[in-house]
């Protein structure tokens, strides 16, 4: 059994999204599928997947690559939107359009029953985000809420709390994913803009830690015991050093944040998961088993291919060096526990929606 918890389906062509936008927004300017400030030289996606349409845009091809060639049993689709564009209401419309497209093109016509999806919402529009979760949460194939890594406020800040509360109330984890596009964002590193693509790509996933630290310190996990976050770009390689540092100063800082009533790292097992990435982990596979034990990562990590990204990682690569119990947890057990994927899908009419 293998569960791929991080797959990005793409529109076939840039204008396709306009079919899913309300008439009033169809002529707005919207960034292209592959448009982003830090694009990988040669393309963001696997070279062999470029063709008439965008990579990862044909359901049968994706199914063949993941299920037939890769041996994957279930795949969680987490589509990108177009970045934190300045008009947050338009961004919310784009999220809804992406969700309707995902249902229309991917989840409803899929007879294999192996694809699951993500409800993309725009955190800069908290009311709209909550409404979008309420609109779609009952759909049996939508298993999580998706938000961008990019943000101008970290996700522990109270402005976001209604969104996380709605997700938790529906038992939906919140998946954070780097979302290209052309957003109004801060520079991607703590020291400013990266001068090279590798400088960008190696640092950007590590920003998850600011979201995580603020979620803990602001008490978000304490107030919402069912809230779960999935950081889908990896970055778990730096989890142990930074959580140790957060733990070290916990006791000293309790005067300021008394609601943090346990060591910060004690929140990890119930609230935090990561998807695997090609950039994480020891370069010597012999160190893998011992290294996974630090911070209990064996229970936190889920296989995610990142398909069709250029750094797409096959299950065998993600599990290299793990013992068989670790391998089981990473390749499917942890994801299965989070998403309940082996439970039968409820029969019945698909959730009503307005396009």
């Amino acid at each position: 059994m293998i569960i791929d918890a991080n797959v990005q389906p793409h529109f076939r062509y840039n204008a396709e999204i306009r079919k899913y936008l309300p008439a009033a927004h169809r002529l707005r300017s919207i960034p292209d599928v592959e448009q982003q400030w830090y694009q990988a030289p040669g393309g963001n996606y696997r070279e062999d997947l470029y063709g008439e349409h965008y990579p990862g845009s044909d359901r049968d091809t994706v199914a063949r690559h993941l299920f037939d060639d890769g041996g994957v049993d279930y795949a969680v689709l987490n589509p990108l939107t177009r970045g934190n564009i300045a008009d947050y209401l338009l961004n919310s419309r784009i999220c809804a359009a992406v969700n309707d497209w995902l249902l229309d093109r991917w989840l409803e016509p899929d007879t294999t029953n192996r694809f699951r999806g993500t409800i993309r919402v725009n955190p800069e529009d908290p009311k709209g985000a909550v409404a979008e979760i309420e609109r779609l949460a009952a759909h049996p194939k939508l298993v999580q809420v998706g938000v961008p890594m990019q943000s101008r406020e970290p996700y522990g800040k109270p402005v976001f709390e209604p969104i996380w509360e709605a997700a938790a109330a529906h038992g939906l984890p919140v998946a954070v994913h780097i979302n290209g596009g052309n957003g109004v964002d801060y520079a991607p590193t703590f020291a400013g803009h990266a001068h090279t693509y590798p400088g960008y790509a190696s640092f950007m996933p590590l920003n998850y830690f600011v979201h995580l630290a603020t979620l803990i310190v602001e008490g978000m996990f304490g107030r919402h015991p069912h809230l779960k976050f999935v950081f889908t770009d990896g970055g778990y390689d730096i989890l142990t050093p930074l959580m140790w540092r957060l733990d070290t100063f916990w006791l000293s800082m309790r005067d300021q944040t008394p609601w943090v009533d346990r060591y910060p790292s004690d929140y990890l097992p119930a609230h935090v998961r990561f998807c695997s990435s090609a950039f994480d982990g020891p370069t010597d596979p012999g160190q893998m088993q011992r290294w996974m034990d630090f911070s209990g990562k064996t229970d936190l990590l889920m296989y995610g291919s990142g398909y069709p990204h250029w750094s797409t990682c096959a299950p065998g690569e993600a599990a290299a060096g793990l013992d068989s119990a670790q391998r089981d947890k990473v390749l499917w057990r942890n994801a299965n526990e989070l998403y309940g994927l082996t439970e039968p899908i409820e029969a019945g009419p698909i959730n009503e929606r307005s396009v």
Partner: protein
Amino acid sequence: MTTIERVNPQTEHDEIVVAIVDTDVHPMPVSTDVLKSYAPADWVDKIWPTGNAVTPLPHFYDTPDSYKTMSMRVDAHPPGGGFAGTDPDYAAKQLLVDAGVSIATLEPMCDAQLPQAEHVLKATYNDWLADVWLDRNNAHGRWRGSIGVSAQVPERAAREIQRWAGHPYMAQVLMTPQTRGIPFGSPHFDPLYAAAAANGLPVATHLMGQTPFELIPIYPVGNPAHWHDFFAAWPLLYVSHLMSLVFDGAFDRHPDLRVVFVEGGFTWAMPVMWRMDRIWEARRADLPHVRRRPSEYVREHVRFTTQPLEDADVKHFREYLEMMDLGDNLMFSTDYPHWSYDAPAYAINRFPAAQRERIMRGNATALYGLPPTVTALPGEGPAADVSFE
């Protein structure tokens, strides 16, 4: 607990073996007026326009009880009065005699907003530090200084480095990591790096002012509200600078450059080296100017100071450090007289036995060219040799 055993303590000696080097200590001027006396007269009103003291700096992110403690060890305020770190004799008693530090590297902290004012302020601090700490109160020769420079004006920084080159006790250059959006690997800093490398001086970086707002790094997904999460994420500023130094070719342009990351953690170095190596392997065509594996640059060019040590389970922490294998790159530090001080006796036990000697003194001695013995102070037990087992 492992301690440093002083062998042959009964014998009187003027010289004691260097057992512990502390690479992060913060001296302060007794008053702003004292500092002003070292500043060019025409700059005094520009740097201190209100006449108010610039020290201690107010903090955007406050540490516990900071109105009372000002982020200092409350027992570090000199009994004769004055702020923590202002009295060289009292610092010598607490840090050198009582805590057993043999040699300490002094890193004064200061900031000014405008580039030229920052440069003048740094030069003023350098003159004050050289006079008060490195000359008049350094008969024992156990204080080492840092040449403060403004990273905003690298050409002037280079001239300031040149002004102090050859000083017997100036051990390194000190620049802020709060570079207002310019990563360390940028050619912007080349004149500064070239001058430091040409004079055999490492470039250390340490959290500087927490005010004004423009000096706080903008965290890419927004800034936390509390010191707790702000400071836990602070190492990511150093990670950003280190990735830039490697990927933007600074170590290729300056083969003799050595960089010291102070008080920003060090256990992150292992995953960051893996991460850089992996992406370098995958994207070599994007990095034709990066000729070696990134982790090789780190091992050769970079040092990390150890305070604040992470309070993890000691056994796991030692195993982690063994796995990390950076025993040649870590240098012990206390952060005296600041509140999160790490005592030598607390720290040494947390390092793997095979790395202790290098971390406590060996690496710093080699980097700064320190002597094997120093003058004993009154009350110090002489030692013929020390053991780190």
